[in-house]
């Protein structure tokens, strides 16, 4: 199973602070640097195998629940 970065959110970096912002709604989730770079990697690659994502399961749940990441079978 692979995941991709949806177009709903955008990644932002400002003064060593990292954010995900819902592009239409402007709702904001501050994120850690490691997660920022991992998501950026998914954007650059277009997709990533779900097993290759090294983050906590609950963080992955949040990413999927908020449709920050989408799933491809």
């Amino acid at each position: 199973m692979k995941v991709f970065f949806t177009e709903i959110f955008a990644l932002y970096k400002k003064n060593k602070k990292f954010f995900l912002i819902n592009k239409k709604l402007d709702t904001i989730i501050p994120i850690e640097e490691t997660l920022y770079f991992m998501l950026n990697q998914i954007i650059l690659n277009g997709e990533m195998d779900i097993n290759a994502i090294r983050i906590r399961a609950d963080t992955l749940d949040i990413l999927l629940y908020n449709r920050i990441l989408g799933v491809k079978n």
Partner: protein
Amino acid sequence: MAGYLKEPVVLQWDMKTGSYGKIVQHIIEKKVCELDPIKIRYINPKDVDDFSTIDRIKKQILVQCSQIEMDFFEITEEQIEKLNIDQTFQYFLKFDSFNLEISMYSKLKFLLQKIEDLNVIVYITDKNFYQSVELIKWIYNENSNISFYIYPDKKKENFLVHVPKLHNAILEIISLCKVYKNIKLSIYDKEKIIKDILPLNYYRHGNFCITETGTVALYDFLPDYEYGLITTDKTIKEIWRDILIEHGDSDLCKILEEQRYWFKKRNGNGDQL
């Protein structure tokens, strides 16, 4: 309840300059430049002064996403002609409860030619949704690359609070997606979605709105307050902190207490969704 950021990162400024005028606009400009926002949306800029202000802010602070939202019925053809399109900005054209006459299509055509990469916002009521559908069709036929955003109009009596009427309107709008397979169209109510995310503790509120009278609010649908933004007494960060401490939680809690309406029960009774 979700927490807050130390300073706002998403800023919205209504530049209409209602009662305070251009001199005070300059004070707001200086205060905006004290912030370090990621995103700014300038609402209702019209004349050369407004666009010069936007340009000066762009030169002073690094903002990753700048947006300009213009009201179709407020901006004139002369002002459209003078518009200097900045490719790094996103442009939004707003149709706020309208009665579009044939003569206005030439102005619209002119605007669509001027700004190719445009986003269109349509506020709908029970009275204008058929017209809204026609408007969207017309614009889409002119430029199929445009994104459309449909919001409920809560400023006036709107019988789309009643579920059957609302469903009927949504079906009409959704029918556009059947006819135009690739149309970029979203229908949503910001207030309702903020209500849904409030209990999620990983969200943070960093939104700050400046109204046309110089009052401030966290979101455009929340109450606005006079905190001396248009005076030189307080910095914008102090104002942000004050509004959060004094009104943040209480105003956001009020949203939670509302029944779950797509359209808030602001005018008359509505059926529950």
